[in-house]
């Protein structure tokens, strides 16, 4: 199914359907990840691959047009390159371990340690969370910094020179949903449970699938539903852009600050055992705080991304649909 959808994306010339297919592709790959036991990954992919990234693409299409011009490039050259790379990859693939074999080299090294010792060392059931937030916390700090930097980059590119409140936004972001009663009512009912669910995912990440990354994206999607229903202006009155910028930086700083506190207590950077005398409680506290930092930063950056994209849509007559 993944392959069928991917080929259909390559086939279609209409970008709108390509984006819709990309969304389906995200959902199908999420279910594939569930079948591969990667529930945390599937969770993220369902929120991001099927939700946020097609949404951003749709907003982009609104601005650049949904029709793809017929390419003058010869696809044969591309086909030859692709075929050569494919054959090389297939040749290399022959030596890889069989699918699902338990003695593959990937399962050696540190993975058995994580599976056998993390219950005693970290004390939480979800191994993915304990690796993400404790064993490899320094990597995760780097990832959060990358997300934050990408958010800054998009804002630098898309927020225009005049401050947001001075620009004449009322015309740019009128929601076309205003005369649609059913989506408005259903949306109003749905937004609070979505936010509540995000908080559940945030704080339950130690026990079930979930964590800061997923929670941030889900929380942001609640705000995005709000924008789609009531327009950007109304949303900006509820969550102001300057606060979002401030909070995005705060989340990252909170994460870093935990590391510095550990350093000051005489342990390694992000070694939570320094936080409290009881090491299980210390690990719990450390993971909770840095997951909060991750969640806040991801939620703020995703909201900022969406605001930046939607705020860029030029003024259009009201009868035109928003998504093209």
């Amino acid at each position, binding site marked *: 199914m993944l*392959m069928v959808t*991917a080929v259909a*994306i*390559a086939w279609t010339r209409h970008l709108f359907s*390509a984006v819709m297919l990309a969304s389906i*592709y*995200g959902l199908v*790959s999420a279910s*594939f*990840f569930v079948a*591969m*036991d*990667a*529930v*945390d*990954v599937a969770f993220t992919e369902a929120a*991001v*691959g099927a939700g946020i*990234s097609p949404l*951003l*693409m749709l907003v*982009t*299409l609104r*601005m650049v047009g949904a029709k*793809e*011009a017929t390419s003058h*490039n010869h*696809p044969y050259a*591309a086909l030859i390159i*692709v075929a050569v*790379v*494919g054959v090389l*990859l*297939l040749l290399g*693939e*022959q030596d*890889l371990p069989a*699918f699902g*074999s*338990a003695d593959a080299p*990937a*399962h050696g090294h540190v*993975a058995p340690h*994580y*599976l056998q010792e993390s219950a005693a060392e970290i004390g939480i059931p*979800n*191994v*993915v969370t304990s*690796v*993400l937030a404790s064993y490899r916390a320094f990597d995760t700090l780097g990832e959060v910094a990358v997300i934050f930097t*990408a958010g800054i980059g998009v804002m630098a*590119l*898309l927020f225009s020179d005049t401050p947001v409140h001075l620009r004449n936004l009322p015309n740019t972001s009128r929601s076309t949903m205003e005369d649609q009663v059913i989506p408005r009512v259903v949306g109003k009912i749905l937004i609070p449970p979505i936010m509540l669910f995000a908080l559940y995912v945030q704080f339950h990440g130690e026990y*079930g699938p979930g*964590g800061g*990354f997923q929670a941030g*994206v889900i929380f942001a999607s609640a705000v995005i539903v709000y924008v789609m229903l009531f327009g950007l202006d109304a949303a900006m009155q509820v969550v102001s852009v300057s606060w979002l910028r401030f909070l995005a930086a705060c989340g990252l700083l909170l994460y870093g600050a935990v590391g510095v506190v550990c350093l000051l207590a005489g342990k390694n950077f992000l070694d939570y055992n320094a936080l409290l005398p009881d090491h299980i409680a210390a690990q719990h506290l450390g993971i909770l705080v840095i997951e909060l930092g991750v969640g806040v930063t991801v939620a703020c*950056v995703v909201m900022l991304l969406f605001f930046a*994209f939607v705020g*860029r849509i030029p003024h259009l007559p009201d009868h035109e649909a928003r998504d093209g």
Partner: protein
Amino acid sequence: MILDLFNYWIVVILMMVGLFIIVARGNLVKKIIGLNIFQTSVFVFYISVGKVQGGSAPILSDSIEVYSNPLPHVLILTAIVVGVATTALGLALVIRIKEAYGSVEEDELQVIDNQ
């Protein structure tokens, strides 16, 4: 033998489709979609390498003996979120190109640049 490696076949085919879109299509938005497919093929590769036959999701429980490898899950989980951030950055660049040139087709951009 072939069936033992079927996950790698899927990965290679997905990767080829993504690469084909990136190379053959001139539209910049389509190229970004192609990059996303390419990226997902890498995700599928990592996750399927982490799968252990008969294993369960790596959430510790007394009744389960075999778990899949949690390490690839962690790597890919963060990669997905970083991926959407970089996709957004690419789309932002596309929007600026559209505003500056009035087109997002590669060959038209080349014509404008050569003038």
